[in-house]
């Protein structure tokens, strides 16, 4: 959207219609000038894949690629929700155990009360919403720092989870719908239909935007660039889907494993929804505004408290979906579901992707990319088969390397003056 201006008699900042070349040029300048978005994180991701790929062949197999989706799902979902919370400069330490509690509620309703999945899943999501609402209320209305509120909730939910599970039992689920969520794949046909829908949808949105801007005489991106973007997406999706629709069963004689994992479109749907909400709706604009300068937002008449509550609701809601998927993946729930490093990994995912802990800066896609970085490290590291101690150390080092790629490129940009 950065446009160039030419002198105009009206004194109004008017703009020349850029060409594809000038646009690319401007993009490059922008990249060099510091407006780099998630580029460094993607770069880091590529570096990681090269490292692991050269160390272990299996890393680049279709099976392993498919594994990545379900392995990263919980962290990605929690991180997507955390992006909203972080955008306001708040933190939610309880997201991990909140996802555990929601997962447990679903499991209990399914297993012990015989609810159908279409009752249990919404109940789990509702639990997430209620949790978020309570947290938000405490933060926004009582003014307790979110770190403290969610630290208390972190402890509390851990206890709730233990009590729900009767002191420490594991509860198995066997509802086939729920089990499929994290463990099954779309059929090959469905996979390709999804790809087509996605590409066409993206194209429609892009062209619509151009049309509406052009009709007002505003600067539009040159057609070439738009086509390149659409083409890029198409190529990416087609290659990924081609890989994923290959047979990757360990035991092809017994069963066939093909198609895009179901979690992939679920992630995509939420990514699209939240990106839309943040980028194109009034609510999203207000979230950024409150995060950037809450006093300015208040003066602009934005209901700051309500926004604050809402981000916690979104955070916990997304955590609940993460919980549903993790329970689906594990076929069971235990008192440590959502514990361990899940929380730190989720916040880390959002931050690595470029979300600021101080609010006002971040995108939902960051969480997905950051989650992918974390999942790739985890995935690759377990393939390496190091001893526990070494594994921790190498994981830490690799995380640092991935983050330095990001930091150094941003720093380079910053030295050009942008702050």
């Amino acid at each position, binding site marked *: 959207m950065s446009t160039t201006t030419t002198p105009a008699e009206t004194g109004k900042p008017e703009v020349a219609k850029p060409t594809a070349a000038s646009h690319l040029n401007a993009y490059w300048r922008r990249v060099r000038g510091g407006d780099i978005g998630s580029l460094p994180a993607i770069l880091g991701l590529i570096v990681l894949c090269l490292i692991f790929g050269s160390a272990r062949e299996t890393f680049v197999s279709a099976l*392993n690629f498919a594994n990545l989706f379900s392995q990263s799902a919980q962290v990605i979902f929690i991180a997507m929700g955390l992006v909203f919370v972080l955008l306001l400069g708040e933190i939610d330490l309880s997201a991990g155990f909140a996802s555990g509690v929601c997962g447990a509620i679903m499991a209990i309703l399914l297993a012990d009360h015989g609810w159908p999945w279409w009752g249990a899943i919404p109940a789990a999501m509702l639990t997430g919403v209620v949790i978020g609402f309570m947290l938000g209320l405490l933060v926004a209305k009582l003014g307790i720092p979110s770190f403290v509120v969610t630290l208390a909730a972190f402890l509390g939910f851990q206890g709730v989870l*233990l009590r729900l599970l009767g*002191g420490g039992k*594991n509860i198995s689920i066997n509802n086939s719908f729920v089990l499929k969520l994290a463990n099954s794949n779309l059929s090959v046909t469905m996979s390709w239909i999804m790809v087509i829908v996605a590409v066409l949808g993206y194209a429609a949105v892009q062209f619509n935007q151009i049309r509406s801007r052009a009709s007002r005489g505003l600067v539009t991106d040159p057609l070439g660039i738009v086509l390149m973007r659409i083409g890029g997406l198409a190529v990416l999706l087609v290659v990924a889907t081609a890989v994923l629709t290959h047979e990757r069963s360990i035991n092809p004689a017994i069963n066939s494993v093909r198609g895009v994992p179901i979690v992939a479109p679920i992630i995509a749907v939420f990514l699209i929804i939240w990106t839309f909400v943040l980028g194109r709706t009034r609510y999203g604009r207000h979230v950024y505004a409150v995060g950037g300068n809450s006093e300015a937002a208040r003066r602009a008449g934005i209901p700051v408290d309500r926004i604050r509550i809402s981000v916690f609701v979104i955070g916990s809601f997304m955590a609940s979906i993460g919980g549903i998927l993790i329970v689906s993946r594990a076929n*069971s729930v235990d008192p440590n579901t959502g514990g*361990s490093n899940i929380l730190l990994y989720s916040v880390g995912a959002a931050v690595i992707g470029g979300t600021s802990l101080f609010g006002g800066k971040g995108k939902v896609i960051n969480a997905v990319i950051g989650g992918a970085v974390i999942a790739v490290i985890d995935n690759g590291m*377990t393939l390496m*088969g190091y001893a526990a101690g070494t594994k921790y150390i190498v994981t830490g080092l690799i995380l640092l390397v991935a983050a330095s790629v990001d930091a150094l490129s941003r720093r380079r940009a910053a030295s050009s003056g942008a702050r």
Partner: protein
Amino acid sequence: ACGDDSGDTSTGSSGDSSSAGMVGVILPDTKSSQRWGTDDPKFLKQAFDAAGVQADIQNAQGDKTQFQTIADGMISQGVKVLMIVNLDSGTGKAVLDKAKNAGIATIDYDRLTLNGGADYYVSFDNVAVGKLQGEGLVQCLSDKGYDKPVVAELNGSPTDNNATLFKQGYDSVLQPKYDSGEFVKGPDQSVPDWDNAQGGTIFEQMLTQNQKIKGVLAANDGLGNAVISVLKKNKLNGQVPVTGQDATVQGLQNILAGDQCMTVYKAIKQEADAASELAIALAKGEKPTTATGTTKDPESGKDVPSVLLQPKSITASTVKDVIADGFVTKEQVCTAQFADACSKNGIS
């Protein structure tokens, strides 16, 4: 405010009503096994209640700072007997020393505190548990008739000393097989915090890396279930034997379904009863008579008077023993889905 679960026995200060002193019990965590969260508190409380002895049963949640804080609290409350399941020998010893200085009788429950000098020791042999797991896996693999099967090991938390002991046990069985070429040693990784979710990821990666895995030594039922969920995803469940431990409902069901090969049943009630019997006697100021065995503390070289119990290996045909023991109920295990399997295995 404290009318919860096990907590309500410790109201008021000690020694005001009954002649017996109070007993303090510190359990280690709620993650390494479900027994510490559910079974032990239940059985211990039953036993103490029956004897009319006040007891304060608490769980350190895997945090050794907590562990010591709880011990401090119990000592200041004036317990007469302190029974601990240590998180590690160092902290355990610190607590035991403090207790002894305060003139409190001490019992090591389930885990021996090395060089701790507890007065009594009640336990299953953790190395023996590991051995049973190893032997169970060997049995299941030979039943399947696999030739040179690749065996993956999914160990417990790297920070848990018990996990090390289990591993000692099963490696003592498996290592000779690897050495003889009968089995092939596959990937071998620890699962931080006994975290089932991480266990699932780790096993998924093991399987991706080494698709010929034919047997899995999972350190407990929770990890076993995580392994089975990955196997199910790849439709390999039932073909790859998986071990477990603790005889949880989940584990037993997995066994009945044929997805898990065996679990190790530690008759927790027996252990709890033996320990509480000791504690009750000590609390009443009597000298216990049940501690007939001894265990040699490998560090101090001292013999600790002990009650030692034997773990049992459980397979589909012996699930009924666990139910008969009252450790789990038939209703819990034989849900609609497992009814057939139950009747087939003689559970009525």
